[in-house]
């Protein structure tokens, strides 16, 4: 078991013929993901690594039974690609694309609610369940199957932390990169409630960063609803206010979104916060023993 992914996860890659699409389709396959089709309008009939390319998502659903999608299309066309996936009946959409206008995401998220489609991202590294499937761009080699769930607003920092967990002898049930944008689909709270019900997951790692209030909201939710051990790391403790630290969402503005406020919120909810990413495995060990 894992969350959101299972042996029946059949993926369509939107934007499969682009540079990134090609590269990661191959890597996902090597991880064991069932990629059933690709979509690039105007390229129907082509094959990528033996995978059929269609003009529409609908065809990928009808002909190949696709139920999940990963989106690599350029930002100006991302909204349309997501709507197309939702309309075709896809229930899990992962958006890798960066720089999607937030107005587009606001609309898409309202639309996805009506159709009960789960959106992860944009500007995210995707989701990985070792031994089951991967829909995303995280490096394959760092993962080992285990009992730790990971939810993160970051990309590379997630790899760093997953790698540290793996090297410490533990493993991952499911890891999800939620994305670094101000408006994202899946949140810490969504992920936490799924992990709470997942028998395989024994503890959860949250990787947050400055900006917004997602961590504070997660802390409140944990206090009320989560009895599995949770540990956290917050990036940007040394970041000055008013500066966008790489991610569009990573900014302390008008006194909100500081690392201090997040660390405090977590600690008040009984969530231990690591000072350094490399300290997480030890915190995790301790939390799981208790």
């Amino acid at each position, binding site marked *: 078991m894992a969350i959101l992914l299972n042996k029946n996860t059949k993926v369509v890659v939107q934007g499969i013929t682009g540079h990134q699409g090609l*590269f990661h389709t191959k890597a996902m396959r090597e991880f064991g993901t069932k990629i059933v089709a690709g979509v690039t309008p105007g390229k129907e009939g082509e094959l990528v690594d033996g995978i059929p390319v269609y003009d529409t998502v609908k065809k990928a659903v009808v002909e190949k039974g696709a139920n999940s999608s990963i989106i690599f299309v350029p930002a100006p066309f991302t909204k349309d690609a997501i709507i197309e996936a939702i309309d075709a009946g896809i229930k899990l959409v992962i958006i890798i694309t960066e720089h999607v206008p937030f*107005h587009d995401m*606001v609309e898409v998220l309202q639309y996805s609610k009506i159709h009960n489609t789960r959106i992860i991202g944009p500007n995210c590294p995707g989701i990985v369940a070792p031994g089951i499937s991967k829909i995303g761009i995280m490096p394959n080699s760092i993962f080992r199957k285990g009992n730790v769930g990971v939810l*993160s607003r970051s990309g590379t920092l997630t790899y760093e932390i997953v*790698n540290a967990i793996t090297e410490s002898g533990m493993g991952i049930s499911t890891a999800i990169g939620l994305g670094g944008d101000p408006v994202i689909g899946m949140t810490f709270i969504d992920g936490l409630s799924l992990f709470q019900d997942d028998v395989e997951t024994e503890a959860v790692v949250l990787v947050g*960063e400055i900006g917004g209030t997602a961590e504070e*909201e997660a802390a409140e939710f944990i206090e009320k609803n989560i009895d599995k051990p949770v540990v956290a790391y917050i990036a940007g403790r040394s970041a000055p206010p008013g500066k966008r630290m*790489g991610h569009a969402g990573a900014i302390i503005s008008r006194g909100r979104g500081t690392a201090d406020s997040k660390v405090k919120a977590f600690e008040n909810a009984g969530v231990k916060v690591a000072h350094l990413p490399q300290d997480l495995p030890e915190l995790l060990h301790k939390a799981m023993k208790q």
Partner: protein
Amino acid sequence: MVKLLEYEGKDFFKKYGIPVPSGYVVKSVNEIQPINFAMVIKAQVLTGGRGKRGGILKVSNLPEARKALDKISTINFDGHYAKQYLVESAVNVVKELYISITLDRSKRLPILMASTEGGMEIENVPDEKILKYYINPFIGVSLYIKRELAKELKIDKKMVGTLYAIVDGLWNIFKNEDAELVEINPLGVTEETLVAMDAKVVIEDDALFRHKNIEKVDETFDELEAKAREKSIAFVKLDGNIGVIANGAGLTMATLDTLTLWGGKPGVFLDLGGTDDPAKVTEAFELMCDAEPNVVFVNIFGGVTRCDTVATGLVNAIKNIKPKFPIVARIRGFHEVEGRDILKKAGISSFLDMKEAAKNVVDMVGGGA
């Protein structure tokens, strides 16, 4: 984000049916037209607190206006001087209100905020004095919300129609122009009508492809940050002396945090992002050199970005530039052995452990002194 100057925001207001005082923009005293009634001269700068710093002056004739403009032109607004001035009719206001539409990140919806406490920064208005409405993007601002606003803001009956037009205008600007923020503060209430005294409009960067007419101006005024932006490299200038190059925003932040924890002072945040092109790494390193750090810490966790790609780009850059500062590298992840080999041949030793590497960097600059 693209912050618009007041007059640019007011141009949008006019286009979208929001009443503004009559006025025009000048660049110098010679462009000021004869003045028959009270006017204000307003510095067109993005810095907050213009009024308090003397950037807005009331005048009643031409000589006064010229004098005022001259005076305003000498004001230093955080290292920046006004290049344009708005010459506007003075408005006799009875009351000042506040109204804005922006994004609420946690609700992931637009939020309309209004208050009877206009004229001061909304952050300083107590929460119970702020009216808040979440707006569904497909529905817009419903009539009942506008009705409620009119009531709560105690708008005179004869001005209710104007208020509705202002709210509709704000929403249409927010949506059609891809704004992050549209704010009227203060919204002046006169004896006869409502009028937008100021305009704050911020357009989202990522949506500029839909708005070719909006010029992307740099709000930081930092030359290197502007240069980096042109090259799509995330680069932030900080106060310290340690340059940090890492891949991914989260990892770069974590690297800064680690150095700070050891007593170091980061001076540059440079996020390479995901790249498979050594030339981009070379470019990034050149940019770093321009910032003249005392030491550079390269912290890479290879995934999509391969360690050997970064190493190659780095070595190429060093060959040309011959930097005066030492470089410390920490390389992990995809193709790490190859990456470390390439660096070693160029005389750069690399660490495996991030903590240890960071400590080494801080020691080199003597605790960030």
